[in-house]
């Protein structure tokens, strides 16, 4: 497929943006139902984003306007570019080269980095604290998340998402590497700042965290970016651990199944303090992921 079409319309771009919003709705609705609430109507995320896009974007005093307006674009662009290397909607990755797994993981982190920088760029105190927490959290889940994705890569002997996905298509790696699967899924929740890892945007402490000063287009782009990241992350985890996403049915079925699990986890726990998040990841998450990785490497060498 022409990479430009893949990037802008299908399966990336426009399709991905809409899918991200649809998944965001599923997530919100599920969490709401689990919390005994009614939840939003299906078009609520679309309406939110449309409204935000139509609004004036206020650049606060003390912020560098170039950075302030540019960071949301970079964040969204990063998430959309990451989608190029991931099998989406049952299609193989639109673009592929050896080692694209690492590129994808770092493109996904670009989002968090942009949110952190966006917060640090303003002089708002809630934003500054939120930015500190966002970046602190980045350092806590990033390593275990990457380690968890490396597990399947080592089994396959390739760091190319397409090849790993093709290998995992017939094998349920969640059974052979359960720790990696759990760490990857929970790492994704940390990446998306979902409860209980929502300390960076804990509303009862720091309002909206790093994004407090964002309104209008910038905020809409961050929201869209998060939706895209949700899809890309779910697709990666499903492709690596749940026996592949090579046809549309298994893609939607498996990613939605993961989303249900994520929604249940979100409504189950109280928010962790930032130092508890870091402690959890480095004391348990990283060590478990490392142990899993070592085990995988040893068995690979033995066999």
């Amino acid at each position, binding site marked *: 497929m022409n990479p430009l079409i893949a990037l802008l319309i299908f399966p990336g771009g426009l399709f991905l943006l809409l899918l991200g919003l649809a998944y965001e709705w599923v997530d919100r609705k599920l969490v709401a139902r689990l919390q005994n609430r009614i939840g939003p109507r299906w078009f609520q995320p679309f309406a939110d984003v449309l409204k935000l896009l139509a609004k004036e974007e206020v650049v606060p005093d003390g912020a560098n306007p170039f950075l302030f307006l540019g960071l949301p674009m970079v964040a969204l662009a990063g998430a959309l570019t990451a989608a190029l290397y991931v099998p989406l909607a049952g299609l193989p990755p639109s673009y592929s080269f050896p080692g694209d797994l690492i590129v994808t993981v770092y493109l996904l982190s670009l989002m968090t980095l942009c949110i952190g920088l966006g917060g640090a760029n303003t002089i708002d105190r809630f934003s500054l604290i939120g930015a500190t927490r966002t970046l602190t959290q980045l350092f806590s889940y990033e390593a275990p998340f990457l380690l968890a994705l490396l597990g399947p890569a080592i089994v396959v002997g390739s760091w190319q998402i397409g090849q790993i996905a093709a290998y995992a298509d017939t094998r349920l790696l969640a059974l052979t590497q359960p720790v990696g699967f759990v760490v990857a899924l929970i790492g994704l929740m940390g990446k998306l700042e979902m409860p209980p890892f929502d300390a960076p945007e804990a509303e009862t402490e720091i309002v909206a965290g790093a994004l407090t000063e964002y309104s209008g287009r910038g905020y809409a782009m961050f929201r869209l970016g998060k939706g895209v990241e949700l899809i890309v992350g779910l697709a990666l985890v499903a492709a690596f651990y749940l026996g592949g996403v090579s046809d549309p049915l298994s893609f939607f079925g498996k990613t939605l199944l993961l989303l249900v699990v994520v929604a249940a986890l979100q409504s189950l726990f109280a928010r962790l*303090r930032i130092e508890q998040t870091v402690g959890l990841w480095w004391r348990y998450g990283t060590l478990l992921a490392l142990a899993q990785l070592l085990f995988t490497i040893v068995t690979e060498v033995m066999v």
Partner: protein
Amino acid sequence: MPTTEPREKFIVPIGPQHPALKEPGHFEFTVDGEIVTGATARLGYVHRGIEKGTEDRSWVQNLYLLERICGICSHSHALAYALGVEKLAGVEAPPRAQAIRVLVAELERIHSHLLWLGVAAHEAGFDTLFMYSWRDRETVMDLLENLTGNRVNYSANVLGGVKFDVSVEQADAIRRGLDFLEERTQHYLTVVTTDSMFLRRTRGIATMSKQQAEALGVIGPTARASDVPRDVRVESPYAAYTTFPVEAVLATAGDLEARFLVRVKELFESYRVIREILDRMPAGDLTARMPRRVKEGETVSRIEAPRGELFYFIKSGGGDRPERVKARTPSMFNFASVLTLAVGHQLADIPMIMAGIDPCFSCNDRLVVVNRIGHEADVWTWEKLRQYGIEYYRR
């Protein structure tokens, strides 16, 4: 903006408008990274001049005005006032009225504690508990509406008695509601004492020793969580608490978990007392005759509101309106503990520490005029106070 002291401080402002606060108040927390090193409070955003307003209204009208001091413990205010005025006038409400007063007071405590449970869980980011406890709170709100006709300001009291009777059907409805709530409360007790993720946010946080609690003068459930046996219902029973005694629920730990424990356990005590009242409701009149003018004199009236001791001072000049009514609300005396305990904790714990005392802002606000020596005493009229308020908020 950060202050310009020698070493620049990073101050996190909470309020007057902030998602953690349901009512306006202003708190400034000086932080070093995530650790709080100092805390100050500024209240006074919702001063309404109610105490002054009582002096322009008749004894009966004041009942309704004072009920509006607080939307959550409205019955407590009306009850404390009614008991005080009855004491001044030498009138005793009939036993059935007293029992109904206690019944409503305990239902109010249930609704207040369930509300608090939800708010406190929300401050910890545990929205599921928040939603569920508020759903269950609707049960008791419906019971109150069924009983009094109102969900918030029940207007159950009149001077000399109560306004309505409790029918057999209503009593049955209350019993059914309580059965449901008791089961749910048992579940919440399990959650707040065993959920390990939640305990990470409550156990050992904001621990207040018994000595500290006494020194800071905290009252109500906050004090009882630090093993200070301070409960007006037990110390000096009023209304029907003499016939239907309650036990003070105490916890020893003094941390946030203990505050959860005390309030949730108090719910069981309320359920027990309400059932007892319904089973042994005294027969008789609902009101006693109340004179329009109240004899000259002054009195104090204390009751246990959901948040702690509520204290009323009432002075009568012998006319048809009070000369002075002073309400001393419980939250004011618990705020000092927040400012003290916050220091040394993480910023993330602040909303929970604040919610831990179950603060209520609008009943705190007072206007104090200090007369300096050599200046003449100044009498503030209602009109002057009102004008001052308009000017004050215009700035």
